[in-house]
């Protein structure tokens, strides 16, 4: 293990983000190939923070740790927790036992009775050459069945949303830890010098809020940039401070020239102080981001056919369609980790039937459109698309026609770069209560996602407060069977 001091002399730890613009551009260009970005990122931003440094220079130098199957991730987050037995995990025995009590002994629970079973009202069918089972609520997605790797045996902890959301997004609930996207940003860096590596579209404001896309002790450059928030329609969403309400860009450039002139004069007086260099470079970056982002946010350049593909301008798909289309544009622009979140609409304690119908209809066509569009553009092969939520829902009824939170077993699926298409992996018992075959814990999912990106979850570490931290803490194993 590398026991180097947290404070090596400046020449070896000089922050490349702080060198004059041309050199910095070169550095970033080199990093666009995915080379050495971790080292770069690690040395940047937080060089003044003594308590926190990359842990293992050897690991940094050996990136990628393994062959990368994907260059980026699009994570489709269904806030609230969709019901797996109604969408991806058909259970004939559950349906047959509708209205009957579920004895704990049948599903390995110590409790005598677990509640009254609620069968699924939805028809399931096998799709594609692979015969992946999908419920009738996802007709558009079903056409992509052979692209899906459906994992039916996810499990996690946290029976309340807040805890489960934090575990899904950061691996931990009772401590503040970097989010998955921040780790990916740290590991891979951005492919686009004008954009952050991690963007989250319409993130939840509650249930951990910004913690779910925060960088915690990783350098702040790795935190997710938020576009809007869950309760705001994406068409009205903004990135804060991306535009000036008062000054037009042409004038702002002149103002920036004045700022930089003052700063450069100061810099000359100080024999190239790193913080002043950094400030100068940073204003340029901000200014470039300011012009780059509106182009990405605008859907004006998209054809009618593309908009239709996502269900944009049609209901109920318009909002999620726009979010997915934006995700594609960000993927195209080189963002490494893109999360798309629904509003808090999947929490069906009552009327799970109607709720599932309504919410599926909002996302089915947009998701299918995203997969199709990515595929047409040749992006799907190196974009890992992941669909899922903080937990699933009970096979037992709640309030008569609803289902309660269920972290013990639920379904997620992956598609695209690295995902083994047409595979159904893992299984739950006859009622969808607990995994009985190939259980996949949330930590395993994280390890697997990182692995698909060429990152070994055990080597992607950061030294903080005296020890090395990683996304999966001391847990997690890569589920090689779901990867190509």
């Amino acid at each position: 293990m590398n026991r180097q001091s947290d404070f090596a002399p400046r020449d070896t730890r000089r922050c490349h983000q702080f060198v004059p613009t041309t050199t910095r551009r070169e550095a970033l260009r080199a990093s666009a190939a995915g080379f050495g970005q971790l080292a770069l990122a690690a040395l940047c931003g937080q060089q003044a923070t003594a308590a926190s440094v990359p842990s293992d220079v050897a690991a940094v130098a050996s990136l990628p740790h393994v062959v990368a199957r994907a260059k980026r991730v699009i994570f489709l987050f269904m806030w609230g927790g969709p019901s797996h037995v109604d969408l991806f995990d058909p259970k004939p025995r559950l349906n047959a036992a509708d209205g009957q009590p579920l004895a704990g002994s049948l599903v390995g629970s110590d409790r005598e009775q677990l509640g009254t079973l609620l069968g699924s009202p939805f028809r399931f069918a096998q799709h594609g050459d692979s015969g992946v089972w999908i419920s009738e609520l996802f007709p558009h997605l079903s056409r992509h069945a052979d692209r899906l790797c459906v994992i039916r045996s996810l499990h996690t902890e946290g029976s309340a949303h807040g805890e489960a959301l934090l575990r899904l997004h950061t691996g931990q609930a009772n401590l503040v830890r970097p989010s998955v996207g921040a780790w990916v940003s740290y590991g891979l860096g951005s492919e686009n010098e004008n954009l952050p590596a991690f963007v989250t579209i319409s993130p939840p404001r509650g249930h951990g809020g910004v913690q779910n896309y925060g960088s915690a002790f990783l350098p702040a450059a790795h935190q997710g940039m938020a576009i809007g928030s869950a309760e705001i329609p994406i068409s009205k969403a903004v990135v804060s401070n991306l535009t000036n309400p008062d000054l037009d860009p042409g004038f702002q450039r002149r103002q920036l020239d004045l700022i930089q002139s003052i700063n450069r004069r100061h810099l000359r007086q100080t024999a190239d102080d790193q913080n002043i260099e950094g400030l100068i470079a940073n204003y340029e970056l901000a200014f470039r981001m300011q012009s780059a982002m509106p182009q990405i946010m605008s859907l004006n350049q998209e054809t009618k056919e593309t908009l239709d593909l996502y269900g944009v301008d049609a209901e109920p798909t318009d909002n999620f369609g726009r979010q997915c289309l934006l995700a594609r544009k960000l993927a195209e622009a080189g963002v490494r980790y893109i999360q798309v979140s629904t509003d808090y609409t999947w929490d069906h304690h009552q009327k799970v039937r109607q709720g599932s119908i309504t919410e599926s209809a909002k996302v089915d066509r947009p998701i299918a459109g995203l997969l199709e569009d990515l595929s047409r553009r040749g992006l799907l092969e190196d974009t890992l698309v992941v669909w899922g939520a903080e937990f699933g829902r009970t096979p037992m009824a709640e309030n008569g026609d609803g289902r309660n939170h269920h972290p013990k077993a639920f379904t997620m699926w992956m598609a695209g770069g690295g995902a083994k298409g047409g595979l159904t992996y893992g299984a739950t018992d006859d009622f969808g209560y607990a995994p009985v075959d190939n259980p996949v814990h949330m930590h395993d999912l994280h390890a697997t996602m990182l692995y698909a990106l060429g990152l070994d979850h055990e080597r992607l570490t950061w030294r903080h407060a005296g020890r090395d931290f990683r996304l999966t803490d001391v847990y997690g194993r890569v589920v090689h069977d779901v990867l190509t």
Partner: protein
Amino acid sequence: MTTIEPTDVWRLRQQVDLCPARRNSYRVKSLALRTERKISGVSFQLAMQKNAGWKPTPRFDATVISRLILKSSRSARCLLLCLSAVMIAPLNADEPPAPEAVEYFEKQVRPLLIARCYSCHSQKAGKQEGGLLLDSRPGWIQGGDNGPALTPGDTDHSLLIRAVRYTDPDLQMPPDKALPPDAVAVLEEWVRMGAPDPRTSSAVDAASHQDPSDPVAGRTHWAFQPLGGEHVPAVEATDWPRSPIDAFVLARLEQQQLQPAADADRRTLIRRLYFQLTGLPPAPEDVAEFLEDKQPDAVERLVDRLLNSTQFGECWGRHWLDLARYADSNGLDENFLFREAWRYRNWVIDAVNADLPYDQFLLQQIAGDLLPWDSIEQRDRQRIGAGFLVVGPKVLLGNDPNERIMDVADEQLDTIGKTVLGQTLGCARCHDHKFDPIPTADYYALAGILTSTEVMEQRYMLGQQRVMERLAGLGAQGDEADGAYETYWRERPQRQDNLKHGKSALELLEKNDLPAVRKLAEAHAGVVAAVALDEQQTMAARLEAQKALVAELEAAAAPPQIPPRAMIPGDRAKPRDEAIRLAGQFNKPGKTIPRGVLHVISETGIRMPEHESGRVELARWLTDTDDGAGHLAARVMANRVWHHLIGRGLVRTVDNFGRTGEPPTHPELLDHLARELIESGWSVRTLIRQIVLSRTFAMSSRDNESGRLADPENQWLWRAHRRRLGPESLRDAMLAAAGTLDLTPMDSTVSYLGDQATAVGENKNRRRTDFPCRSVYLPVIRNDLPEVFDVFDFADPHATTGLRPQTMVAPQGLFILNDALVMDAATATARRVLAEVAGSGDTHGDDALPAIADRMFELVLNALPEDTEQAELIAFVRSAEQHFAAVGREEPKLRAWAAACQALFASSRFQILDDIGLGPE
């Protein structure tokens, strides 16, 4: 053919020893060497874990080893045995078991134990997870915290077998990955055989692999040593030092053959003093007065004035609030509002302004609720101070209550450990500390004090009963008022029902429907007035009586004012010692440990009271310089003061004085400062005063070639550090320039929020940031900080932060270029300057431009512009004014100057404290 060298395996094993992550499994796995069968005849391959990145050194051919040692063996496990034979010399047992049993052990069992168990359960690895050693027969006989690891002959009652079977979700070993079934079968067979084991004692001399968590050996670490004696060093440049502090610094510089920088000029010095002591810039008038003051004690008088200003406490109180992870909401999973937390915030500010001695300051925060009091005011002050323990973040929903108790105690221990002692105590929750002399037993000794304390209680919130932070009423009638408030919420549904029924009774009475009124009265007590039922009375009187009752019911149903309350801990009815939790799992209790303190500091420990949690004793122990942690606590605090004033701690890892932290650059100086702190009666203000009056503090920040080459990080302090302004100072300084900063201290700035602090669901209220007050009073909502805080590296209020991160990220640039806070402050500053210059009546029109530029420079930068700077600013303003006029904007001149002022706010000269107006040497 792959070749390996035993020493390489040894080296890898050493890495396991040093491995910092808890049970960092991949290295262990790589040690297992993936023995799975590549063996054919004499050739084999040691397949390393795919990514271990380790290339074996071809020293001697593995074929040779296998020929020499393995002979006919085809088992890869035997290979491991042979390799381990190099590493671990087998010892003879006193009473050796049957030879075939030994053979089974050696061939099947020992390699397995080495490969999968020793990394956490052997003396050689220096680890004894759960108290268990598996590297000798006595090790498993004695067993760990759970008792003997196995019962010879009885697999089902052997913990080790249960653990490796992985059927018990709470006891699964090895933790990283289950053993393959054949390996489990090997262990089962071994136990059935009666567990023959020739290993009489640990194979490797324990002394050569000292346990880092050993408290006795740990006393040699510098931070645990008593403070050294006072030896102010002799220096060559005897005229330079003004105080012992300077002598310590200069001695080091001379050792390194470095020169201290020149004294900073007066403008630089006053700006630095203002920002470091109050977080605010001096007004131009303050600067002028100081420049005029030629008395020798001018600096001293300035310092004393600043130290006695309210703004001092607001600035230095905030430093403490960073450590206390102060916030106005819970954060984490359910972001409930801490409606009363502001009282603790203001208590800290007041305590700093009153220079409450640090030992008292700690005592009140850790045990304020348990201290005696002479007046209600004193009681309340102490209660509010104890909020320190309560303001931490907690997972509130869905988790097991017993788990929560341990989590809360852990959070408090982590906070106290880092803040006061610079120790990462939390590491010892699951296992003995990997680096520092803190065994798990010491962790649970401390935890018992805190689990004997409650900081949560059942209360009504959001209309339902929830477990939330503990509160107590303030003032003489506080408890009653708090009780009444709680009663209201408990009875609210009933009271609302009563009101409804009372009103219907009134309506029925008006309709003269007596039977229905009687029916109501029978069904619901207290909703119909007795007089109303009395037919002897006139209808008017009966109506009157019912109306009066309805009014009463209405009053009872209306929510009362929230009474003044404090967040406050309380002792449980019965304090209890805590059991070690195996592997940190809350539901796996092991041995019970008497409440106590760290053995590395106090050999004999301290007496814990029978009927109290022990918080008073803990707090006293923390600053006890005879038998407690006083010397360490003084070092940690003195270092924090130095860090804030000078820009970098003598120990740069300010929250980590352990072995993974940095040693001090100037150990004698650190001890000097610590001693000064103790001898002043723990007066932090006195220490601050000593440091800012030193010549070291007053150095210029100018670079020079020799210094930069020899010590680019400036660790020997050959010049002053340049400092970036934190978000509070950044905002306050902009508002100060604008003249819009209101220095009045604030109470709550979150009272308008609902119980959910983050605007989610029905609750659309979000924290406001538009208060004109100082930043320290702005709402600190976890996960929803004011944007200026969020963007400019405010301390994450979820955990102790002694050293804020310093980042350079695009959102900072975007904030300065576009945020309304900056734009508004710039406009207000421009308006102010234009009015002031116009008001002075000296100059008009273009002639006034230089005066405006000068005044703006002074207000924002405490500097006068050089000629080129002035000309540049004026040229920009002229062209900007034309631009705004051309695009038809109102007040083009004001806008032009506002844009110029924004540029000054954006400049490094504003955001980075540096020498004012001096070029390089």
